[in-house]
């Protein structure tokens, strides 16, 4: 866990190879290693106490040095946390309590005995799954980005190097010119994972050829989308992978300065990012003359002030400049005129994390996975009326149905599925009848439910779509910047109408008025937040219009209301 024995500052690709060899030679593949999930979900179930208990137990049993212990990033299966995975067997224990720790050490770590009561059992069949990869939640995933999470202590650059980290950066700098890196990203047809799905390569190219001495690359780690918690999981758990992607991006775009824009309310994430940057500087992956290539690159971290709109690209750039995070019109793209009017490339956490993977394994490998226009994997966060809440990574093209039923374990209490909502407050819902749709940027957008950043909110038969829509608008009424009239006032009036409807004061003509406001707000607002603020409303009006009509009818007929 410590870097003390390693001489930092690597000056060339071959020095990096030597260092990696040294690190790997010190690692015994048969040495037991315990990975305790310190992701958000597990921490909220006191996984900190479990980590402490393991530390004590290892001390007591004099196992220090004989067993590795890691507090890792999110394993994904939040529903069953706290999670503990014991390598090399990859035995996975769920819902672990601190009291279980002595037994885990004496039985599993030392004797390789499986403790039945801590093993995942299928809630329907009772069938047990001892290893992580056998658990249904994990079985159908393709964990390209999250796969190494249980083997990496986010605070250890050595762990990242042992997992092959920074080899893509080294390859880029020593074997490829910036144009070749750019070309590889374009060939991989990497699309932005933050919501828009815009081709990252094209964005990079625009910034690369745009005039300007200073260019910037930025990680959007704001993740304000309600129900989205995968970026935080990935970035907290494997910060170097995102950082490496950013440095490679800087090289390809011709930028010397990167920014990471993240949340003020995620202290562990901030700490891990800071640690990763400090280590990368120490080892020479950041700073002047990286790996002896002549390329210099620095990274600065910025914290948000806590409103949703500050994750919008132009608002975010205003914030980095030191201005209030208000969007400005993007008649000239931010990749041409962004921060301080210089070309700026903004991609989200997951997009950047894909970059080292593409460079390492090549675009040909990368494009084997996915659909025609959506390549690679996608992180999704599952929440709502679903058995397995958590973060999953699936190949594009996976049917929504598989995500909900195979990975997500279906709907609790035998309830029926009503709708699946994508993209949080700027997204849309599809009804249960359409869950054979593949997870794909374009297919879902066609249905009025763009994939967004990847939050999937599952709604069962008891959910009221009017309530859900009201909830999103209520959120936006506080989280919009309030600058432009169609967004601020449109949201205010739509919310009022829905509140009245829910209070039984709906009126004839409300639906038409909602549609009129939604159209104007969508057409005339200044930024993407305003333009899409009415999207949940539009999609629910499209698929669940009867629910709105019923609410209005209820208001008019007290009898109907009572019966409901």
């Amino acid at each position, binding site marked *: 866990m410590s870097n003390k024995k390693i001489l930092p500052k690597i000056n060339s690709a071959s020095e990096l190879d030597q260092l990696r060899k040294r690190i790997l030679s010190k690692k015994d593949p048969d040495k037991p290693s315990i990975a305790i999930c310190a992701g958000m979900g597990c921490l909220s179930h006191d996984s900190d106490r479990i980590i402490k208990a393991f530390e004590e137990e290892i001390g007591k049993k004099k196992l220090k040095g004989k067993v590795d212990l890691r507090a890792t990033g999110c394993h994904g299966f939040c529903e069953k946390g706290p999670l503990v995975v014991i390598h090399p067997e990859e035995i996975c224990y769920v819902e672990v309590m601190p009291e279980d720790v002595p037994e885990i050490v004496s039985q599993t770590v030392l004797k390789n005995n499986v403790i039945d009561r801590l093993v995942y059992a299928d809630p329907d069949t009772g069938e047990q799954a001892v290893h992580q990869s056998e658990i249904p939640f994990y079985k159908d995933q393709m964990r390209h980005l999250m796969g190494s999470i249980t083997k990496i202590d986010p605070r250890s650059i050595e762990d990242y190097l042992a997992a092959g980290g920074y080899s893509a950066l080294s390859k880029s700098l020593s074997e490829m010119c910036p144009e070749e890196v750019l070309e590889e990203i374009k060939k991989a047809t990497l699309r932005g994972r933050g919501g828009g799905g815009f081709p990252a390569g094209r964005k990079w190219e625009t910034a690369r050829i745009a005039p300007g001495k200073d260019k910037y690359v930025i990680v959007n780690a704001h993740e304000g989308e309600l129900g989205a918690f995968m970026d935080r999981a990935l970035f907290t758990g494997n910060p170097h992978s995102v950082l490496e992607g950013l440095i490679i991006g800087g090289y390809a775009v011709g930028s010397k300065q990167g920014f990471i824009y993240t949340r003020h309310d995620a202290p562990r994430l901030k700490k891990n990012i800071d640690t990763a940057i400090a280590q990368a500087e120490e080892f020479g992956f950041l700073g002047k003359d990286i790996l002896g290539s002549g390329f210099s690159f620095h990274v600065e971290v910025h914290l948000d002030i806590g409103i949703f709109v500050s994750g919008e690209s132009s608002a975010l750039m205003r914030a980095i400049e030191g201005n209030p995070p208000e969007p400005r*019109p993007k*008649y000239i793209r931010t990749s041409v005129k962004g921060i301080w009017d210089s070309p700026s490339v903004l991609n989200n956490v997951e997009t950047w994390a894909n970059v080292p993977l593409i460079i390492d394994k090549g675009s040909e490998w990368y494009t084997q996975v996915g659909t025609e226009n959506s390549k690679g994997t996608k992180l999704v966060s599952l929440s709502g009326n679903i058995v397995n809440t958590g973060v999953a990574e699936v190949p594009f093209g996976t049917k929504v149905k598989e995500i909900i039923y195979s990975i997500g374990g279906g709907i609790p209490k035998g309830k029926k599925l009503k709708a699946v909502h994508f993209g949080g407050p700027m997204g849309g819902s599809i009804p249960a009848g359409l869950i054979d749709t593949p997870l794909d940027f374009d297919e879902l957008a066609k249905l009025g439910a763009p994939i967004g950043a990847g939050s999937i909110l599952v709604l069962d038969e008891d959910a009221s779509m009017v309530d859900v829509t009201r909830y999103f608008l209520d959120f936006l009424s506080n989280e919009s910047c309030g600058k432009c009239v169609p967004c*601020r006032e449109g949201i205010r009036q739509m919310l009022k109408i829905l509140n009245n409807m829910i209070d039984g004061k709906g009126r004839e003509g409300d639906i038409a008025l909602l549609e009129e406001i939604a159209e104007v707000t969508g057409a005339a607002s200044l930024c993407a937040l305003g333009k899409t603020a009415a999207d949940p409303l539009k999609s629910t009006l499209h698929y669940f219009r009867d629910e709105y009509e019923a609410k209005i009818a209820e208001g008019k007929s007290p009898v109907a209301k009572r019966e409901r």
Partner: protein
Amino acid sequence: MMGKEKKTHDFIIQIDGKDVKATEGMTVLEAARSADIFIPTICYHEKLKPYGLCRICTVEAEFRGWTKLVAACLYPVEKDLIVRTRSEKVDKIRKLILEFLLAHAPNSPQLLDLAEEYGAGKDRFEKESSFCILCGLCVRYCAEIKQKNAVGFVDCGARREIRFIPEIAATECINCKECFELCPTSYLQAAFVLTEAFSHPQDSSPTESMK
């Protein structure tokens, strides 16, 4: 308003079927005004940087066969641009924007004039007479022209409002008050008097402050 044009960057754009000479760097609004074509504005002021907030100047801009709705006060002209300042879509947007704003400032003459033009109903939405429509003219005038920042926006979303900063207002505003006449709803005077009253209770004889 739009400097003497450099011949090399002049080109023709079309606004409402009329050929209009434009210069690179101009906005659609500037080009339209130079040709006496009217586009309504609320938050625009020629001394201030365009802010694109009220969206009442939304027009249709067609370029290479693609039509977009854009804010005329911000959208840069480009060669072969075709602009339509009135259309069914544009009018619908302006009408609703006016109705939104009239809920807050039902007696603003400027809004009422425009409402008549676009058939906007004064009472379409429930009144929340804050009198301020958050056009930001005072805020921007104070920041850009006076460079005092005595008045600013606070909070966000539906809670956004303007506030005078008492510490600055107490020294700067008494002899300035230049922003008053910019206000399209006359809210500003009230707000200022109130702040003055709070920060200097002993000086706040109403007649003094109102003048």
